[in-house]
């Protein structure tokens, strides 16, 4: 199974993401540049990393969502290829329409950079099967625009369909219903503001993020 990490100009967590994928899957992911017209053939997993793609011009993630490679990512997601977007990657996923809602400026106006408690709301998904439902995990956040917004009908639909993957278990950024991560209708696209790739080694601030990558690669290898 081949994995790929997409790098946009201004991505700054792409290396961390690649290291996490390599440590847990045993295989280094391919690195794909935003200007590439197409994804490599036969990808089984695509990660959109954190950072400040295109300097957050216009809106966070808005320019990256319209970059050449995203057409192929949207197409792959439509065919069921798992896509993980973390932080700026989550913003790119909402801007590209792969996930509903939008990520607005944090309610407190400040950049938030600390480890937060999250509650796992759905442990049935491709990305979360190694967690227990209701489990509280600790994952770092580092963002200015993580305040999740969607209208009430969309929020109700997300909750009803079990598409809220993670919720903040403490006050964080003002997100509607404390949503930290959501799935698409098909369950193969996850966007989340917290950085699981920064929590894979206990020597470096905790390892609660490992189970996310373990879930993905376990589920993909048996699929």
């Amino acid at each position, binding site marked *: 199974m081949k994995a790929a990490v997409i790098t946009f100009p201004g991505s700054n967590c792409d290396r961390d993401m690649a290291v996490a994928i390599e440590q847990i899957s045993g295989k280094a992911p391919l690195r794909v540049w935003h200007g590439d017209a197409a994804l490599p053939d036969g990808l089984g997993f695509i990660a959109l990393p954190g950072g400040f793609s295109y300097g957050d011009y216009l809106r966070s993630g808005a320019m990256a969502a319209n970059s050449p490679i995203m057409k192929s990512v949207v197409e792959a997601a439509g065919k069921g290829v798992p896509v993980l977007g973390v932080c700026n990657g989550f913003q790119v996923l909402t801007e590209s329409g792969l996930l509903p*809602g939008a990520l*607005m*400026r*944090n*309610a407190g106006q400040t950049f938030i950079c600390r480890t937060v408690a999250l509650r796992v709301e759905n442990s049935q998904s491709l990305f979360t099967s190694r967690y227990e439902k209701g489990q509280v995990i600790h994952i770092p956040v580092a963002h200015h625009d993580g305040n999740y*917004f*969607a209208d009430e009908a969309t929020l109700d639909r997300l909750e009803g369909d079990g598409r809220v993957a993670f919720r903040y278990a403490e006050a964080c950024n003002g997100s509607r219903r404390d949503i930290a991560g959501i799935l698409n209708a098909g369950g193969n696209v996850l966007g989340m503001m917290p950085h699981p790739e920064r929590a894979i080694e206990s020597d470096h601030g905790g390892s609660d993020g490992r189970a996310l990558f373990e879930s993905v690669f376990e589920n993909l290898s048996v699929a």
Partner: protein
Amino acid sequence: MKVRIHVSLKPGVLDPQGRAVHHALEGLGFSGVEDVRIGRLIELDVADSTTDEALDDMCRKLLANMVIENYRIEKLETA
């Protein structure tokens, strides 16, 4: 043709920036400010043949995020 695109937050969408600026205005002693909402003004210089449909399309596809924002297109008279 010069075109101004006014992008504003939809009613009901909380505007933390606007709230902070509102607070700052009050701090400066300006009374009677009921509300502050911050938007974005985008100036375009486009070919005269550009259609309204094309301008709408630009707004919907990129310039505004229709989940949280509204837009208004203002065409300026060319001198």
